[in-house]
């Protein structure tokens, strides 16, 4: 009102204030972007943590399974060792046994069972068997039973059943 002229457009702020504002805005933008960066990183880390936690649970389950497998394998190992020992024992026994078989006696077959040894053979007389064959067998096995059967030529077929432990 009243004026013949219109006022010139006025800048809202001073030149140096403008500069300050630009710097402040830049620093605020930097601050916000850094905060955003940290926030994003946090989210990513949280996700990683979750996935790691899941993996830990999974791995724990695997460990349990592996433990079970391990126990099973240990059992197997024990069993194997047991068997090995038994086998070596048996092997030694058999070797000893075969070494012990006297010349007049002939073996037809030998069968092994768990704790049992069955020998089929031919002996000229029962005494030869009882004198030469029976004592070593008795020294090895806990129980020995022998059955004789006379053949037409006067010799005897025999069946010796030997138990290593108690008869089962």
């Amino acid at each position, binding site marked *: 009102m*009243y004026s*013949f002229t219109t006022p010139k457009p006025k800048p809202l702020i001073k030149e140096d204030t403008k500069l300050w504002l630009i710097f402040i805005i830049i620093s605020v933008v930097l601050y916000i972007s850094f905060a955003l960066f940290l926030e994003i990183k946090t989210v990513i880390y949280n996700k990683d943590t979750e996935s790691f936690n899941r993996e830990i649970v999974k791995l724990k389950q695997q460990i349990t399974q592996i433990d079970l497998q391990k126990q099973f394998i240990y059992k197997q190992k024990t069993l194997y060792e047991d068997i090995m020992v038994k086998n070596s024992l048996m092997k030694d026994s058999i070797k000893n046994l075969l070494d012990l078989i006297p010349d007049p006696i002939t073996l037809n077959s030998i069968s092994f069972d768990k704790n049992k040894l069955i020998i089929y053979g031919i002996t000229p007389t029962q005494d030869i068997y009882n004198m030469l064959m029976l004592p070593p067998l008795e020294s090895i096995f806990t129980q020995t039973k022998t059955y004789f059967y006379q053949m037409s030529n006067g010799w005897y077929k025999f069946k010796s059943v030997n138990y290593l432990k108690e008869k089962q």
Partner: protein
Amino acid sequence: MFLKNLIFKPNFIAFYKAKSKYKVLNEQYKKEKIIFSETKEFESINDLKEYIDTVTEDNPQTYVSTFITSLNQGIVPSCDKHKYKELEIDINNIKMVCINNKYSFYTTLYGLMEIKKEYPFIDFLYSVYAIIDKNSTLRHNSLYILSTEEFSYILIYKDHIPVFGDIFEINEELQNEEENIEDISDIDIVEDFDEALDEDIENIEEEPEENENIEHFNIESKILEHVKTAIKEYYENGGDFIEKIFIFDTIGIEKTITDMINDEIFIESSLNKIDILKTLNEISRKNV
């Protein structure tokens, strides 16, 4: 706009040239409250420009205003261009400002251009009548006279509309008066010299006071003359009787002027001091 007013504290600088001096008022407002005020006087326009530049540099929200002191202005009791044609005012050579769709102030384009050239830093340029209009209270059959060092600006209201405006130059007449005063003082000094050579210095000191009184008396009588001339012209153009005269004083007019007016033209009058610069800033504040 509200936010702008809330945050920024605009500076309003008003100035005008009086007797080759630039009178300046710089005010700063926060909302409606004045928080800073400074009055200055400058001898040269460069000093004024420098001051305005300093303030503007400090606060870009600085609005500079002044008013047209010259004779290149007038009022028309209408905003209609036909009225201008009726009054034989060339509408192409003037710039007008319409107030409330009722009346208008105008100035010549040439004068406006000259002022813009002289004061390229101004934001608002007002008619001197705007100052009277802003301060006017009674707006019916009333005469207002704004008295400055160089001019008497007269505005007559009728039915809330300014209907008559006139500007009288004091300077020329004052120069004549000054010559007379010089003559009188010369005589006085001669007389004093003749009558009492050993007179106290006090008497010599009294002389300028006397001169001042004479000067004031002359200013007052000139103002009275201006009022009389204006009223005469107004009546001759079919104006109604003036019921009250308001004198807006900016130079320190003696109170006796009201008696002088009453004795000479039998119209009640009142003398009020006004601050032109403050008024200009008030108008500017409403414009921002």
